[in-house]
């Protein structure tokens, strides 16, 4: 069974065994507007919890993408690099950003549940 959690930087993370899939939330895409550029971490590189692991740009501005957990990048989603508008269309499913081999599962504990994140997103955008 997979576990989905959310970060304060508006990333979602789905953990299946040791494989973590990470993307940005629908709420994040709504705040960003039309996304026109995505940059992903390199396959094989190691990323640290809360560190920068990519960039998204809308017509208006650039924003960093952070990784909510540490690990080794085992896959990246070329589809969103080729067509960044997919991130607006399907941010929490097919338009994932990268997959990690998670280093320490306990890093998941400090992240928010769906309900907690929805509450957080509502409060911070008000």
């Amino acid at each position, binding site marked *: 069974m997979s576990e989905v959690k959310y970060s304060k930087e508006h990333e979602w993370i789905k953990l299946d065994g040791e494989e973590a899939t990470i993307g940005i939330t629908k709420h994040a895409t709504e705040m960003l*507007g*039309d996304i*026109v550029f995505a940059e992903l971490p390199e396959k094989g590189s190691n990323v640290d919890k809360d560190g920068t692991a990519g960039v998204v740009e809308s*017509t208006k501005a*650039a924003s960093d993408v952070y990784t909510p957990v540490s690990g080794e990048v085992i896959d990246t989603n070329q589809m969103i690099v080729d067509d960044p508008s997919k991130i607006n269309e399907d941010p929490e499913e097919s338009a994932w950003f990268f997959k990690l081999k998670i280093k320490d599962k306990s890093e998941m504990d400090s992240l928010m549940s769906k309900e907690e994140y929805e509450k957080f997103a509502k409060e911070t955008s008000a």
Partner: protein
Amino acid sequence: MSIKKTSLNNLHIKYGAKLVEFAGYQMPIQYKDGIIQEHKYTRSHSGIFDVSHMGQLFISGGDDLTNDLEKIFPADLKKLKTNQSKYSFLMNNKGGIQDDLIITKTSDGFLIILNAACKYNDYEVIKSKLDNQYKLNLDESLSLIALQGPEAKNVLNKVIPGCDSLKFMNGNNYVYKNEKVYITRSGYTGEDGFEISIKHSDAETFVESLIENGSKLIGLGARDTLRMEAGLCLYGNDLDNDTSPIEANLKWAIPKSRIETEFVGSEVLKNQFQSGVKKLRVGIKPDSKVIARGNTKIYNDKNQEIGKVTSGTFGPSVEHPIAMGYVDNSYSTVNTKIFLEVRGKKIPANICNLPFYKKNYVKGEINV
């Protein structure tokens, strides 16, 4: 100072605008469709822009007004026919641009459209340079609405019949709901279009009737991507007090007849016409999908800094990142290879021609 609202504020909210503060006004950055759809709708049909935050300065009184204004602005105002418009500048003594503006000759004087962030300062500067006999009115009882796009003429003609006969950079008086409106054929998107100066109390119904005829409200976000594709400058980004019209590659707006005459900044401009300039505004096309925004540093192939980007975005119609900026004049030739420093990496790019998007203006006489 409290934030000001335009006469269309309720309409912006009704149509789902995201509102931001711009030059002291609460303005729509985008509506529900988002910047890309709004941009494309303007290029394929027509878009309505609330530009009521801009200044509408009327100057009248006295036979010497044209002469006296020519001492301020480098435009050929003597040749201007009634209802004809010219793009020009308010400069400082160093030849730097204090504002870029549109001057239209009216039946009793001139109307000057000023940038929102500059308008109060412009008013003071212009007033200080003119004799007391002239009447200056920065009219805040009028809204200003731009309608832009290939269908603009058809949409506007249904609401205010007859305005499709206007030529580009010309204006005239029309009537809407028994009130006078002043319409010019001009704009800031690279499309055919109009700017309508209308009483605040009529603005909302006027815009609703444009919407009923198929047009859509467009926010400042798309206004910015549209003007960048059209290679047009935004004051404060691409033009400022330390940049002259020659450096900004806007030499075409200084008529030959004025080069030898005197106006504010004329000494510097004359010098630059003769000996050239050190920096020049150019179009920049990154090789990859990376976007270089304002203040991005520009380097040559020897890693020497040669300039900086002043505006940059993703161009929704050209479907590629675009930018403009200033480079050392020796690197200003089209196809020169340059490098843009984005997030610590040097991104290859080329100097390119402006505009990025071909203009669709309805030409009258060639008047530049």
